[in-house]
């Protein structure tokens, strides 16, 4: 038995493959964790072995465990080992594991750089492919920087399989290493016209992704994409292009006009829903960007709406959902066209799918009008009753309130109705939105004077039935409405018919179970009620009844005095004392009602939530200036507290600074003093913290204090927000005159309902300028200086895409070129036999050189800047014109001058004059020159020199130093001509020929710098002996010069860094 177990475990140790592991895990359901930890131990054993097959198997198993949620980061090094296996089978597993578990924090990832580079240049396309795939998952900024050039080279690989992968990876590289975008972009653009559809679509994908984030840099590509769009039949590509246009049109409305036609054609013709949906979306975006002044596009809108209707009517929930989603976009700009489909949208409210119902609700918001509001809300109320889930019901509730209150109650014609809706809503169980309802009640009651009587009666009813609402207080927010009810009844108690009854309702013991802030409102408003009852009784001479009511208060108030809530307790005890005092007076038969009612004299007015913000800063007041001398840094510690104290005092004395004129100030100060005097709750000792709180906002740096204040302001006139809110409002009374007018208007509106149309429009207008005098200031106050609308604001500063906001039309500066590992070929030349040096050695060398190289680049860049500038400007101008031309002329987007072709044109021009000079070239065969010297010279050469030499060197595969044109050229001259199609650029022509040597040449516009051309020359040894040394020279002219290594003179030649064997 024991033997068997041992044997079994040995077997497992060597044999267990992935399948066994999976099976094992499935068979050990009960003790999975234990089984897996056992497996991990085995895997650790396996990883220690030298056999790469065993290791790969172990890594494969680890990858599976990783998916199950086990940490395998400890095996990172082993994964790299497997990645570097020479067999594809293992390499593949290694890369898979790496792509699953490596991330930017994995420290061993640096070790992979050279392995990946090696794989990228592997002759086997699948090696390259797997490396690219892996890289796409774990590329880091470092990797991106080091490998950008290699990947860029692969973008011109002969195999489309590699090209397309390389193109897609470039996107990831751009994200990690934005500097690479500009150098790589010309080639990326080239790939848009790649013969292979896969590569093409990959390029479209990448550019679309780039352009979506920073559309303005890609406007110049519009003509090219337009051509693609009209010619492509691949829906995948089409969708991407159309999406791209959707991003571009807001920037260039003319583009939109041009797009409408092909898009509508597509909408008509396509059968693919995804394409249709994308088209509709883009058409909507286009129409939004065109906005006004395009009356003749109502047809396209109609078409979109029709198509969307088909989507919504579809039985497929997905289409329905998206149809509604797109519809809501149209709604914003063309509400009319959507409104005609109200029936359909109301139907969607009955849908089983909650997400669809929510979308439909969103739509309803924009569809209401005065006529249909009641009808729609009635429907919604029915849904509220039926709704099961609380979330959905809450959503309904908020939507009802949103719909009704939108644009300042624009659509409500009957406020009694609205109040009753609100009251009905209070019967909802378990809603979280009690405060919303409460806020609405308050808002309506305060702002619509005519409705107060009705509102008060309804609220009294609510208070009477408070037990229904409060019965389940603790667990829901609906009791918030009692807050509103109590306040409304108290504040507008003159409208109350059964004041006694309401007062009694408010004094019920049950009230003490309500949340503290509501009790506080209760207490405060009881007094208001009490005051009005008292007045009533005194006037009618019922002294008995008046004393009775006082007695009632004295009996019941103590229950609030005992409250645990500080606010309630404080108010209650103050009021209790006050009423006891009143009782004494009453006993003496002194009429007190007048005085009591005076406590609450004056009307509370609503304050716009943002009113505080709109207070203008008076001239001459600099809010940022120090009031005192700023404390100097050298101040000793113990002095500091004093300064702070000083500061505050000072602040206090200046607290009225923000008010507009002195007279007004004096008047208000007077008013407040009176108010204070009348207010028994006002603590009259010098600067109370509350007072300072109230006063400081003007002087203090506004944004800070504002936040505190905006809370009471939002719920205007709430007694709970303490006396000083009242004062605050008093102060603003003047500013609110407009509002009063408006209220009157609303009142009128109610009385003569026939006329509301005109009134309403007026009323919205007046609402706009709640504080008209300050309106202008909003802009400067609310927005930071030169803030741009939306765009910039909602961008996350950490947004990785922001870094890619790069102008792509500018020619490349030298300093921007990608780091290239150009010394490689020299190395291999030097020691052609040492194929694969140690990885460590390799990784160190390139880095150092790269740095050096980069520095030099930068220096050069500075020099060249001047001469380039002129060219640049010209270039840009041309581009601008091009796009304009394309956009303004209606005829087919002739593929005439596309901006893309320009660099080449420029290049060719330079090349023309260059050709002549080449004749003057001298080349000498020199015997026996020191090889080491040569190669060191070569190292110094910049990769952007004009002349690039090629040879028949057999170590071709090692030569991946330069740009891809060279790579392409390489493959030609390497005799691989037969198996591979000729790259279009390899049109080599004869330059010169004699008995020793034959030279063919080709000129390329430099993709990365259009003021330079690259002339590639192929040397062929025609002689029978070894050509051991050559030198290349060109006589510079006015227009051209050869780029020479740093420090060499104009007449120096460049040694050709290779030797030519005889043919």
């Amino acid at each position: 038995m024991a033997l068997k177990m041992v044997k079994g475990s040995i077997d497992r140790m060597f044999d267990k493959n992935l399948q066994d592991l999976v099976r094992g895990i499935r068979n050990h359901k009960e003790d999975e964790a234990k089984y897996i930890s056992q497996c991990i131990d085995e895997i650790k054993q396996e990883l220690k072995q030298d056999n790469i097959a065993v290791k790969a198997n172990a890594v494969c198993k680890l990858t599976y465990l990783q998916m199950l949620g086990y940490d395998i980061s400890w095996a990172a090094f082993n994964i790299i080992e497997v990645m570097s296996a020479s067999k594809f089978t293992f390499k593949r597993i290694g890369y898979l594991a790496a792509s699953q578990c490596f991330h930017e924090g994995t420290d061993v990832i640096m070790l992979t750089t050279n392995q990946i580079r090696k794989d990228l240049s592997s002759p086997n396309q699948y090696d390259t492919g797997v490396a690219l795939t892996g890289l796409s998952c774990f590329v880091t900024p470092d990797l991106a920087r080091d490998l950008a050039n290699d990947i860029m080279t692969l973008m011109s690989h002969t195999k489309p399989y590699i090209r397309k992968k390389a193109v897609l990876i470039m996107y990831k590289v751009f994200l990690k290493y934005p500097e690479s975008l500009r150098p790589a972009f010309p080639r990326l653009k080239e790939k848009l016209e790649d013969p292979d559809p896969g590569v093409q679509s990959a390029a479209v994908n990448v550019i679309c992704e780039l352009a979506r984030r920073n559309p303005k840099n890609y406007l110049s590509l519009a003509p090219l994409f337009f051509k693609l769009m009209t010619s492509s039949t691949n829906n995948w590509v089409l969708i991407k292009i159309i999406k791209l246009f959707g991003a571009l049109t807001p920037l260039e409305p003319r583009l939109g006009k041009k797009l409408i036609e092909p898009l509508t054609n597509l909408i008509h013709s396509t059968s693919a829903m995804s394409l249709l949906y994308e088209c509709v979306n883009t058409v909507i975006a286009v129409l939004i960007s065109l906005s006004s002044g395009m009356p003749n596009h109502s047809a396209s809108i109609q078409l979109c709406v029709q198509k969307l209707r088909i989507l919504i009517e579809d039985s497929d929930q997905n289409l329905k959902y998206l149809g509604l989603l797109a519809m809501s976009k149209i709604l914003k700009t063309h509400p009319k066209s959507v409104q005609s489909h109200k029936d359909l949208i109301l139907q969607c409210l009955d849908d089983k799918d909650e997400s669809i119902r929510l979308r439909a609700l969103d739509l309803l918001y924009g569809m209401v009008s005065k006529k249909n509001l009641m009808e729609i809300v009635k429907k919604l109320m029915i849904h509220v009753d039926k709704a099961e889930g609380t979330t959905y019901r809450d959503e309904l509730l908020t939507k009802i309130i949103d719909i009704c209150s939108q644009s300042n109650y624009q659509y409500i014609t009957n406020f009694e109705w609205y109040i009753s809706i609100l009251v009905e809503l209070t019967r909802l169980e378990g809603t979280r939105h009690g405060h919303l309802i409460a806020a609405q009640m308050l808002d309506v009651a305060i702002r619509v004077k005519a409705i107060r009587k009705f509102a008060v009666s309804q609220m009294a009813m609510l208070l009477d039935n408070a037990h229904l609402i409060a019965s389940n207080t603790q667990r829901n927010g609906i009791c918030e409405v009692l807050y509103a009810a109590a306040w409304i009844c108290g504040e507008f108690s003159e409208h109350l018919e059964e004041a006694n009854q309401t007062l009694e309702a408010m004094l019920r013991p049950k009230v003490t179970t309500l949340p503290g802030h509501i009790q506080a409102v209760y207490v405060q408003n009881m007094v208001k009620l009490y005051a009005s009852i008292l007045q009533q009784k005194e006037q009618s001479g019922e002294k008995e009844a008046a004393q009775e009511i006082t007695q009632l208060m004295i009996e019941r108030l103590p229950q609030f005095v005992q409250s645990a809530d500080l606010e309630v307790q404080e108010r209650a005890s103050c009021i209790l004392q006050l009423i006891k005092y009143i009782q004494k007076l009453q006993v003496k038969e002194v009429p007190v009602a007048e005085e009591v009612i005076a406590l609450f004299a004056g009307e509370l007015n609503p304050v716009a939530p943002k009113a505080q913000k709109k207070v203008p800063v008076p001239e001459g007041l600099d809010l940022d200036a120090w009031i005192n001398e700023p404390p100097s840094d050298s101040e000793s510690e113990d002095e500091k507290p004093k300064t702070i104290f000083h500061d505050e005092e000072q602040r206090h004395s200046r607290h009225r600074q923000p008010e507009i004129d002195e007279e007004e100030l004096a008047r208000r100060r007077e008013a407040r003093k009176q108010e204070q005097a009348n207010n028994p709750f006002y603590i009259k000792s010098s600067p109370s913290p509350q007072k300072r709180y109230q006063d400081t906002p003007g002087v203090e740096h506004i944004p800070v204090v504002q936040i505190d204040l905006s809370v009471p302001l939002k719920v205007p006139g709430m007694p709970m927000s303490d006396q000083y809110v009242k004062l605050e409002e008093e102060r603003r009374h003047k500013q609110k005159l407009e509002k009063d007018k408006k209220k009157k208007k609303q009142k009128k509106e109610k009385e003569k309902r026939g006329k509301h149309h005109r009134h309403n429009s007026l009323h919205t207008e007046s609402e706009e300028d709640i504080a008209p005098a300050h309106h202008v200031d909003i802009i400067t106050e609310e927005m930071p200086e030169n803030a741009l609308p939306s765009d910039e604001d909602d961008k996350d500063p950490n947004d990785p895409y922001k870094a890619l906001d790069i102008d792509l039309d500018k020619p490349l500066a030298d300093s921007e070129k990608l780091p290239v590992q150009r010394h490689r070929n020299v190395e291999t030349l030097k020691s052609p036999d040492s194929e694969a040096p140690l990885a460590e050695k390799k990784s160190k060398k390139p880095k150092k050189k790269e740095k050096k190289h980069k520095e030099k680049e930068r220096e050069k860049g500075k020099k060249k800047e001047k001469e380039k500038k002129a060219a640049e400007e010209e270039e840009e101008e041309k581009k601008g014109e091009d796009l304009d031309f394309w956009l303004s002329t209606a005829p087919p987007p002739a593929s005439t001058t596309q901006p893309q072709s320009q660099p080449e044109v420029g290049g060719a021009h330079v090349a023309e004059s260059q050709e002549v000079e080449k004749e003057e070239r001298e080349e000498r065969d020199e015997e026996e020159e020191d090889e080491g010297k040569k190669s060191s010279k070569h190292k110094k050469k910049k990769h952007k020199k004009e002349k690039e030499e090629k040879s028949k060197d057999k170590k071709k595969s090692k030569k991946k130093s330069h740009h891809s044109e060279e790579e392409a050229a390489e493959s030609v001259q390497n005799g691989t001509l037969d198996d591979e199609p000729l790259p279009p650029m390899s049109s080599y022509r004869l330059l010169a020929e004699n008995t020793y040597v034959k030279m063919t040449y080709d000129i390329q516009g430099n993709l990365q710098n259009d003021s330079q051309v690259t002339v590639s020359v192929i040397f062929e040894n025609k002689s029978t002996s070894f050509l051991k040394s050559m030198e290349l020279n060109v006589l510079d002219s006015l227009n051209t010069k050869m780029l020479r290594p740093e420090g060499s003179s104009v007449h120096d030649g460049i040694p050709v860094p290779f030797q030519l064997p005889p043919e």
Partner: protein
Amino acid sequence: IHFILLFSRQGKLRLQKWYMTLPDKEKKKIIREIIQIILSRNQKTSSFVDWKDLKLVYKRYASLYFCCAIEEQDNELLTLEVIHRYVELLDRYFGNVCELDIIFNFEKAYFILDEFIIGGEVQETSKRSAVKAIEDSDMLQE
């Protein structure tokens, strides 16, 4: 596409592919959250869920859920097509694919996905060439 998840009806993860880098802990949290959201959804509901600032697009094939997270502006229907295309690819490769195929050959499922999508973007829209690429590289493996 930000990430792709495959999970069973029991909530067991079958495949995960991330096209954005996140710490493992975060990933696990997200996975748990998403599986819960999607499994709790009714069969008859639409396949789109707003989740944080992303949209989840999912589809159920037999007992397996395929779920992609995409951005706000991305096309939902296209994403559904992506999912479907991936399933087709699996189907073609395995020949009538089932959950067990994916469990036992999970690395193959990854390879196929990698041939189809790279870095969150579709790289090969042709089924034929994608499967061919896989088969060719499999040949190489032998």
